[in-house]
């Protein structure tokens, strides 16, 4: 009975006593908020950059914008996410006293945008140029052709890679504790600092991350299957 009693005591001490589980709950809420903000921002940036870059590669237009995008990609992919987060918080936004959720969302969104851009660009480049020609020959303009013909097909092709990027993103937000944000990881560490027991809170945080990722993967598979109806 001693083992079970120990388990119960550990669980009680780390989660129940003083409502310590609330650290995890509010941390999880912030982790999700930052991730959602970053995913939306990253997707918008990523698609815009991808369209500019792939159009430049195919037709040579958008020369200046392509240069700007290349610099963005080089800088973001060439520096650690952690450094970007710290610079965003302590340099760029230092004097604005912003909510760390916004700072984190901006920082992770701009970071993720670079990776999304390269994923989506490869998706666009994989679509047969004949698709663009067919669209344009019908009198559709560049934007309509992109929006109705190219992007939907490219999106389907890169969906698994995109979801993978968002999985990486969720986990990467665990460094936001460094700018004083109470996220899931920081919540677990806070419990640890009160109870001096690392095992329970850290394992709990790990399980929660794992479950989120599994849920995401589940929905991705469902969506993927739905998008494949045209290939029955």
């Amino acid at each position, binding site marked *: 009975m001693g083992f079970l009693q120990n388990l119960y005591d550990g669980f009680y001490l780390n989660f129940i006593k003083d409502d310590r589980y609330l650290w995890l709950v509010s941390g999880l809420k912030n982790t999700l908020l930052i991730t959602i903000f970053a995913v939306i921002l990253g997707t918008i940036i990523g698609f815009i950059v991808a369209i500019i870059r792939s159009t430049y590669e195919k037709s040579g237009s958008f020369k200046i914008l392509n240069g700007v995008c290349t610099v963005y990609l080089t800088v973001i992919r060439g520096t650690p996410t952690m450094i970007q987060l710290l610079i965003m918080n302590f340099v760029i936004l230092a004097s604005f006293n912003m909510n760390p959720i916004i700072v984190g969302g901006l920082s992770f969104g701009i970071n993720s945008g670079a990776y999304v851009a390269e994923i989506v660009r490869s998706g666009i480049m994989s679509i047969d140029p004949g698709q663009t020609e067919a669209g*344009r020959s019908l009198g*559709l303009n560049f934007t309509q052709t992109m929006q109705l013909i190219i992007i939907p097909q490219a999106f389907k092709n890169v969906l698994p890679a995109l979801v993978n990027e968002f999985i990486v993103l969720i986990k990467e937000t665990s460094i936001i504790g460094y700018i004083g944000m109470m996220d899931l990881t920081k919540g677990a560490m806070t419990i640890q600092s009160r109870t001096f027991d690392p095992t329970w809170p850290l394992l709990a945080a790990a399980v929660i991350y794992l479950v989120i990722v599994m849920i995401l993967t589940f929905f991705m598979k469902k969506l993927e299957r739905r998008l494949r109806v045209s290939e029955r």
Partner: protein
Amino acid sequence: MSDKKILLEVKGLQKSFGDNLVLAGINTEISQGEVVAVIGPSGSGKSTFLRSLNLLEVPTGGQILFEGVDITDPKVDINRHRQKIGMVFQQFNLFPHKTVKENILLAPVTLKLLSEADANKRALELLERVGLPDKADTYPEMLSGGQKQRIAIARALAMNPDVMLFDEPTSALDPEMVGEVLEIMRELAKDGMTMVVVTHEMGFAREVATRVVFIDEGVIKEENPPEEFFGNPQDIRLKEFLSKVL
């Protein structure tokens, strides 16, 4: 000037890719109701010529007048003119993520030329016309090559074009499917559609075309009505070419 309206007027058309001059000055006119077959050896520039007519290839010199407007002028809204120039590709280029009906509806509805309901009716009419009325809700993946090309023709027709360009429409098809596509094109010609067809089908050129154009080394070497063209060719390269393909 003849009684027929001139739809396309090509003046000194040039196209080069880097140092490679593919079209070295093409001059011709295409009038309403004409069916022009364009033939020539591979690499002669015949596809580039056809693709220049709706500016899928941007010419590096010369002019193309479509219904009197110089469409090579950068100030011209090319999208508006492309609506009136249908195009059918060798590789069909149907939109794989859309059903057959959606393929046909997409452009007229997006460009607000037809209401959703009218476009629907038109799509079904066109499917009837190309002999595939039961394929409306199928995805292109499920169709044979010949069926795909018939749908591609229906998609181009949905825009009510004034002229139709065909870029080797039967070259990617299995032999037994060539006939069904040529049959549709024959009917189109009979209905008075103006057509420019790059083709290797000499039988089609002979029977359906009102004029045959031989392009070689980036210029038109000879153009004549089919009887004259095939019966009494003048150009030495054309004679050589015909002796190989006939």
